[in-house]
């Protein structure tokens, strides 16, 4: 992919996302969730989306708002049910949304595999559980594994802390979570950051996502929510 583009608005950043796309959405709960990109995606109107994210929305913001706007056909996530996941819960119980539950580490590793050109891998997680159903089983060196396939996105929407003008990214604390993995696993990676600095301003030893994984960047004003509400 060629050099990252710095765009003027979140709306420009999400332009062109097609109906039916698979969209990887960063964040663990609300930490690291790209709120501005999701709000722009709601305005943009793409529907029938498959969303891959750790959770299925908290409160009424971010991913929960996208779900409430009826744009999501299916959610792949590890932990949909939370104290404040009422939007998802209602849609799910009404049969209006499909759910595939994936153990959290498999979600991360399957996206890593997509980004790393690995065709499939044998993983010990979930052996002997209901989530092993339909999966190929193999014993290696006396331990039992399941065959897991990559999860690839058409788009990734992630939040980072600072980008340089080339597209290198750094994150903040546990808001890093899925962002670096999703950036590698999507055809087009779209990032919202709090600040864009000149190339050369980030420590090359501390870059977490190298520019090669980034396609579009938009600078936004930081908005934070905790699971219990806005702050």
């Amino acid at each position, binding site marked *: 992919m060629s050099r990252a583009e710095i765009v003027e608005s979140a709306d420009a950043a999400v332009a062109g996302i097609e109906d039916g796309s698979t969209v990887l959405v960063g964040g*663990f*709960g*609300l*930490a*690291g969730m790209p709120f501005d990109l999701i709000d722009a995606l709601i305005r943009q109107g793409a529907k029938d989306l498959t969303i891959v994210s*750790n959770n299925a929305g*908290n409160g009424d913001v971010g991913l929960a708002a996208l779900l409430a706007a009826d744009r999501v056909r299916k959610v792949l996530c*590890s*932990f*949909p*049910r*939370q104290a404040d996941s009422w939007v*998802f*819960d209602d849609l*799910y*119980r009404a049969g209006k949304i499909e*759910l595939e*539950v*994936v*153990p*959290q*580490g*498999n*979600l*991360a*590793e399957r*996206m*890593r595999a997509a980004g790393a050109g690995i065709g499939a891998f044998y*993983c*010990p*997680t*979930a*052996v*002997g*559980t*209901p*989530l092993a159903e339909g999966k190929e089983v193999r014993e290696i060196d006396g331990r039992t594994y399941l065959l897991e396939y990559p999860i690839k996105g058409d788009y990734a929407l992630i939040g980072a802390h600072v980008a340089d003008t080339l597209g290198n990214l750094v*994150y*903040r*604390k*546990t*808001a*890093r*979570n*899925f*962002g*670096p*993995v999703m950036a590698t696993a999507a055809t087009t990676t779209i990032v919202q950051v709090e600040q864009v600095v000149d190339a050369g301003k980030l420590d090359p030893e501390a870059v*977490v996502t190298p520019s090669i994984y980034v396609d579009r960047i938009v600078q936004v004003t930081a908005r*934070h*929510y*905790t*699971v219990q509400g806005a*702050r």
Partner: protein
Amino acid sequence: MTTTSTAQVAADHRLSMDELAAVIARDIPAGSFVNLGIGQPTKIADHLPADSGVVLHTENGMLNMGPKAEADAIDPDLTNAGKVPVTELPGAAYFHHADSFAMMRGGHLDVCVLGAYQVAFDGDLANWTTGRPDDIPAVGGAMDLAIGAKDVYVMMTLFTRSGEPKLVPRCTYPLTGVGCVSRVYTDHGVFDVGPEGVRIRETYGIGADELAGRLGITPVPVKEQA
């Protein structure tokens, strides 16, 4: 034949969850790398001695996590796996989710403590879903934690509110992991579980034989109590 009479009656009363957290904290070797699951196990952190050198891992991408953040120290970018704002200790490190679960799955954590619906005598764990039709299944990192740490401890009440044992011959709830639990800490006592079956290590406010009777177990002989 039960030889549970060699198990120590270690307290004259059934333990509160806080007291139990202190017991578990006591058993975690100094300098261990430890993941404390969401809910009750989080309490264990409060009972670790300051000089224990225990390093806490949180699966959302951090080592050397500090206590819960209060007031101005709350940072929405810094939470534990339960999404509760926490703090960082000197020597902390952040990493992404694939690296965090590689650390776990690769067997690098010494101890992980989880809550449970049920644990089987052979170490099977059920802690992610009741399997009831109205229960939205949500596994989070439970299955990864269950198979990842060198020792998986469970912290739970021994009986349900209606008096059913949660330490059982065979789990009736959907499994989280097979044969993965090594020790079960409960309000009534501590048990080793695994391929050799269940052994009572110590009891709280009840004799080992009576406890064995309530669980319907014939425990294997207790050899050397640590």
